[in-house]
């Protein structure tokens, strides 16, 4: 199974205090500075929608957002453009992009130290139902890929995987490590 359109969500702490309005000028400054290799286009503001996509930095190859889907605040990377390479390459690319954006947010002075990655959780989705329908066969076909990827990411820690059970939702897995990691550690584990 060729995993494309990998989405990664890094859970953030202190969601109750989160003031997503602060993200709008930050995302604008990322566009101004052409902060990533990807083409960044515009901001979509959905703060008014409960448990919604929050504030989205729309890009050509990928979107970045701080979303509150399922009432879980997190930084999400949504890979839209197709990528060559192996499944491990694509999982790593998406995780690395999300972690780098997270690193920027954590270090962002305008957030005054209020943004913290929770250090031990990551959600992964495949945003294409034909590529990866949410059913048992997909879980079986991808089990090894996810196992290899999370062993590398959470190096030295045990972890558990939980799958999304509603077949209508995107195929996805939530990984929880026994140990907590910094963003830099996770990037280092991925070889960045």
């Amino acid at each position, binding site marked *: 199974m*060729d995993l494309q*359109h990998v989405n990664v969500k890094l859970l953030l702490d202190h969601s109750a205090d989160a003031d997503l309005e602060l993200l*709008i000028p930050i995302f*604008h400054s990322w566009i101004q500075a052409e902060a990533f290799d990807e083409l960044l286009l515009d901001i979509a503001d*959905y703060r008014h929608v409960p448990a*919604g996509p929050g504030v989205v930095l729309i890009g050509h190859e990928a979107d970045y957002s701080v979303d509150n889907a*399922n009432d879980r605040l997190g930084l999400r990377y949504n890979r839209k453009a*197709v990528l060559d390479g192996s499944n491990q390459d694509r999982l790593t690319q998406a995780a690395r992009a999300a972690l780098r954006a997270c690193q920027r947010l954590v270090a962002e002075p305008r957030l005054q130290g209020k943004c913290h990655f929770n250090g031990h959780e990551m959600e992964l989705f495949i945003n294409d139902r*034909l590529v990866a329908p949410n059913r048992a066969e997909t879980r079986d076909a991808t089990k090894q890929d996810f196992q290899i990827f999370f062993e590398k990411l959470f190096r030295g820690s045990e972890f558990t995987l939980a799958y999304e059970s509603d077949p209508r939702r995107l195929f996805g897995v939530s990984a929880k490590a026994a140990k907590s990691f910094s963003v830099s550690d996770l990037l280092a584990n991925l070889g960045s």
Partner: protein
Amino acid sequence: MKASNASWAKELAGKIPEQLAREIDIFEMEIGLRKQGKLDERLFAETRLRRGAYGQRYDNGQRHDGKKVQEIAYPSGDLTKGPHTLWDAPGMQRIKIPAGGLNAKQLETLADLAEEYSDSIAHVTTRQDFQLHYVQIDDTPSLMRRLAAASITTREACGNSVRNVTACPYSGVCPDEAFDVTPYAKALSKFLLGHPDCQNFGRKFKPAFSGCAQHACGLTSMHDLGLIAVTRVENGQEKRGFELYVGGGLGTVPYQAKLFAEFIPPEELLPLAQAIARVFARLGEKKNRNRARIKFLVHDLGIEKFRELVIEERKTLPHDPRWTDYIAEAEKFQETPLVPGGDGVAIGSVAFERWRKTNVRPQKQPGYAVVTVALPLGDITANQLRALADIARRYTKETVRTTVEQNFLIRWVSRNDLPRLYDALRTAGLGAAGAETIVDIVACPGTDTCKLGISSSRGLAAELHKRMTEKSFELDEPIQNLHIKISGCFNSCGQHHVADLGFYGVSRKIAGYAVPHFQVVLGGEWTRNAGSYGLPVAAIPSKNIPEVVARLTEKFVAGRTKGETFKDFVKRVGKVQLKAELEDLARPPADPADRSMFSDWGDPREYTLGDLGVGECAGEVVSAVEFDLAAAEREVFEAQVALETGETQQAGTTAYLSMLHAAKALVKLMNPNISNDAEQILREFRERYYDTQKFWDPFAGGKFANYLFDAHRKSAEPYTPDSSRYLIDEAQLFIDAAHSCYNQLGTSVKI
């Protein structure tokens, strides 16, 4: 582009109606031809529009990032999907939902598409459609196939075609309706979709149905074709029919639809619509799209002549069995409930009771209620759509509709189920109270995604929603019942003309800088199917609009007489006094260091209309042009006051002169010695601004200048109440355009 695009056609083979499948295959082929340069960009643009694939802001490859204009380097380079519209630029996909009716499977399909092709948000429009934003054109055939497999089409959702046929979402359950218009709306929609007689319009054509004359839900007065259900007794039997209206529309200058016929029987509904379409296609304007809506044709011909032509056309139509095939079924049509009705429940929690008060209405069928799911700014997430599908299945026979107030209705809910349904909605984040009250604000996309947006309608709506919601249950009842509607520009997609408090985006210059403003529109009427239109009172900086709302509503509460509506209050108090109440809010900030006014709601970038010159005069100097334009604006307001006091001729003349004076203000920039002679002003305005395209809207072209030329040509003719009203709207738009023109010229022109 999605990895799965190549596979959906095969995956859905046999699951899509053959005709629809073929059409989408052809569209996909046209995409391929355009990419190979074998299809002209203009032709492709109209092709994709007719499939509902619309452009979006910044699709010309430029975006002001707050510091400079950035060129957006898309991978496909110069390849376009229409004039000045780059291939890779994300676009908007509009999805037609006839009469707003949806089942659970369709809700789930929309959820999947919002997630996979857009940003997980589906947006309900003011015409019961859906829109998905940030969609790649290469993904649209897959998206359309998946919709088609759920019996939804995007065909003719945009372009010069018959748009979504809307209908009162309470049809069939409203105690005040004559009969359920749903099957007739669906029959008309099906009949006109792709009809050969509807393929050669100069502009779009929007039909709407209402079950009654008194409520707002159908908004038939502001539609190209409006149909209101009526009955009459013939030979002792009640017979169904429709009051037929034609030639209404909002747009830049709103027109009330004219009564075409007091009663047409169902068997004449489709053929008459066909005859109207033929007359519109044959005689409607084609070259000047700014006068191409049917409202101009009806106005120019007069309703009597138009009626005569349609009746003649009707006689020539070859018989079509589809005209009547549906009628027997339509008369029997009746939605049914999933469970028996109930007597209701005892008083619940405070939150439940608040919600029940504003979001629940009794149906005409005893024991059942209609529940409104209020969506903030018309937005719903993919997960919420799935939750709504579950709720629709659990409590009803999937009887869900979208509304023109950008909400959902769940119909046929047993009154006994209301607490459980409320809990389910609340769990999904869909249990907000305040439906159809002042917090339920309607807004078009505005500068968020629309190419034509001038001010941030959604940003303002979100801010007002937040402020109002915080105190909504402390607000007096008369305030709670007001409607706020916001458009990002003069094009009225937010339906600002028919709100109690309407706003549309304009720009003005303060201290040498462009500042986002909204025109405050008062006097509109939402009920009686949008029975009358408001007029602009004053342009106020965007950041001061919440204070405008606060002042006007406080004044209303303090000064209203018993039972007085806001519209009647505005009329009684008078716009002169209300305008005076707002005057200080139009002024620049007292502290020159206060920059808050120079950006829009939800967008911290310094506001710009494009690549503007930077102001040099930093504050104090107000140019003579600005004084002259302000004087012209005062004049158009005087014209409005004259119209309201019945001085029709005076109103028309003053409106015309206000345009002339605004034109003179601009001419004076280049010829300080310009005289007061109208001919000279017109001549020089034409040479210096129109012919050079300096007075040129990027999307409307020379439309606003033509308002002046037309007004001048007709200035010796007597004005009617209608013509002077239209002229006042045109004069305000001309002056708004003069401000924009002056802004675009920059401040380097010294006078």
